[in-house]
């Protein structure tokens, strides 16, 4: 059984068909990519899977159960986490708080526990903080735990967002253009980091990425969409040599 199975998912915005009959099956531990030219509908696919929009048609199964129509926080609780193309951290609270809040679905205590500081509350808050600190140091962010994201360089903010997504303990991590805006040495570090995370956390990773070196060095399988429709899918080699892709995605240039 596939971890994530999307069947003929279609999304209209008014008259615009942003995603058309999109299907994908993703196995546990796989690392795959979704590529396509600007405005192709890639981010919309992520928004649909993460529950931000409800698809006009089609179904989305996660671990064999339908997650279509669930609220985003419920989808996250099921084990899908994501990052955003334009970084969406909570910029005015510490990095540590950012990571802690992303465990809201697994708080394990209620308002009364919180007022009374019951042993359960104290224990859970300790666990939440330990988990957060562990993740931060794992991603080399231990130093900035008490900084505000707004004061951090762009590249570090991207890492914090990945840490925040991991904090929800996902089985599937969706990265929306993780390398966007990074310089070439940062990109190298990112490639290594993603490979490590993939190995250590044993999760499936699905990324949208424009930078071909990232996609080619990490992903075993690539899907290409244009104007919402799938135009090709296959291994990196197949995609590299597919004339349709070269035409749609790369214009007249070659890879």
């Amino acid at each position: 059984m596939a971890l994530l199975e999307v069947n003929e998912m279609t999304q209209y915005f008014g008259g615009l068909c942003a995603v058309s009959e999109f299907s994908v099956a993703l196995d546990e531990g796989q690392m795959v990519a979704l590529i396509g030219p600007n405005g192709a509908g890639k981010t919309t696919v992520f928004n649909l899977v993460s529950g931000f929009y409800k698809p006009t048609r089609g179904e989305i199964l996660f671990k064999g159960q339908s997650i279509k129509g669930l609220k985003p926080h419920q989808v996250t609780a099921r084990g899908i986490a994501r990052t955003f193309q334009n970084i969406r951290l909570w910029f005015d609270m510490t990095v540590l708080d950012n990571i802690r809040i992303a465990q809201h679905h697994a708080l394990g205590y209620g308002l009364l526990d919180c007022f009374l500081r019951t042993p359960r509350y104290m224990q859970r808050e300790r666990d939440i903080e330990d988990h957060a600190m562990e993740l931060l140091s794992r991603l080399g962010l231990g130093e900035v735990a008490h900084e505000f994201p707004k004061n951090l360089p762009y590249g570090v903010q991207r890492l914090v967002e990945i840490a925040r997504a991991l904090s929800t303990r996902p089985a599937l991590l969706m990265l929306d253009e993780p390398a966007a805006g990074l310089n070439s040495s940062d990109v190298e570090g990112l490639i290594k980091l993603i490979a490590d995370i993939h190995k250590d956390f044993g999760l499936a990773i699905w990324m949208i990425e424009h930078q071909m070196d990232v996609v080619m060095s990490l992903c075993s399988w690539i899907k290409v969409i244009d104007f919402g429709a799938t135009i090709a899918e296959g291994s990196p080699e197949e995609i590299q040599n597919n004339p349709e892709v070269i035409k749609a995605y790369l214009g007249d240039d070659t890879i």
Partner: protein
Amino acid sequence: MKRLTVPALLALLLAVLLWACMSGALNAYWQSVILFMGVNIILSSSLNIINGNMGEFSCGHAGFMAVGAYVSSLLSVALFTKSAVFGEPLLSPDLAVWLFPLVLLAGALAASVVGLLVAIPSFKTRGDYLAIITIAAAYIVKSTIENIGVIGGARGFMGMGGVMNAMTATANLPWIMIWVFVGTVFSVWLIRRFIYSTFGKGVDAISQDEIAAEIMSVDTDRVKLVAFMVSCGLAGLAGGLFAHILGYVNPGTFTILKSTEIMVMVYLGGMGSLSGSVLAAILMTLLIEYLRDAFGYINTFLHYISVIPDSYEVTQVWKWVLIPLLLVLLMQFRPEGIMGRRELADVFPGLRKFYKFKG
């Protein structure tokens, strides 16, 4: 040791206050100023959860205060004292001292349930629209009370003085001072525990980026619901105390002007700063008291220099020009208030020696 300092200080403060009230060192006027200070602290720090931490704009806090004021007043009068509305007390007046906290709690719970009136629309809408809804909710509460004849309607409801007298008859202590003090400390303590928990920090996450909050596992509807209920419930508690300080309640007290006054305190203190709200409530209470006299002097002065016609008197009413004006000026020139988003401990790190802040 560290954790004991603040409770010890508070106990000392209460002891000093009680001594000052009983020995006459504090006259009735200053006692009432301190009592209103307490009520205002509860009001501003509870509204701060919504208008500060959550970044919403609720303009109806006085409405929830009214619910608490009426529910607890009706209950306490019915239970502990002989009245025209309810007749003989249902319980022995001796019990008033013991059961009064429960009466206040009932008022708070009622207010927090009415808080749903605002919380549920807040799932779908934000900003200006929610502001309008909160004003509407406050007016619904006020008009409802005005139209219930048995409890006095627009004329108001009284008899709470009898309840306070019943307490004094049991033990001769300045009870209202005790209740207001305990209520204030309790409220600030409750709010602190809420907003510093990972659960409560969800409120800040919603204010900074609601979509990110929802996608990163925060059940935003639930967090908003809880935040509104805590905030409105504490407004109800403040209302209950307020009614028992005055001994009577009148729906005319709980207008949008009262809500504005509370909002000024929140914005003066700094949005999202609990210590700022407390500080601003203290300052505003003093300012309002000061204005009471000041308008008299201003009146005399303006007549003296013949700026206003002889037939016109500058009265208390001008408070309602000054306070909204203060809000406008504050938003215009120092929107971050006294404290910004910071707490006392951020401004004076030395305080950390005495207490584990942000615990």
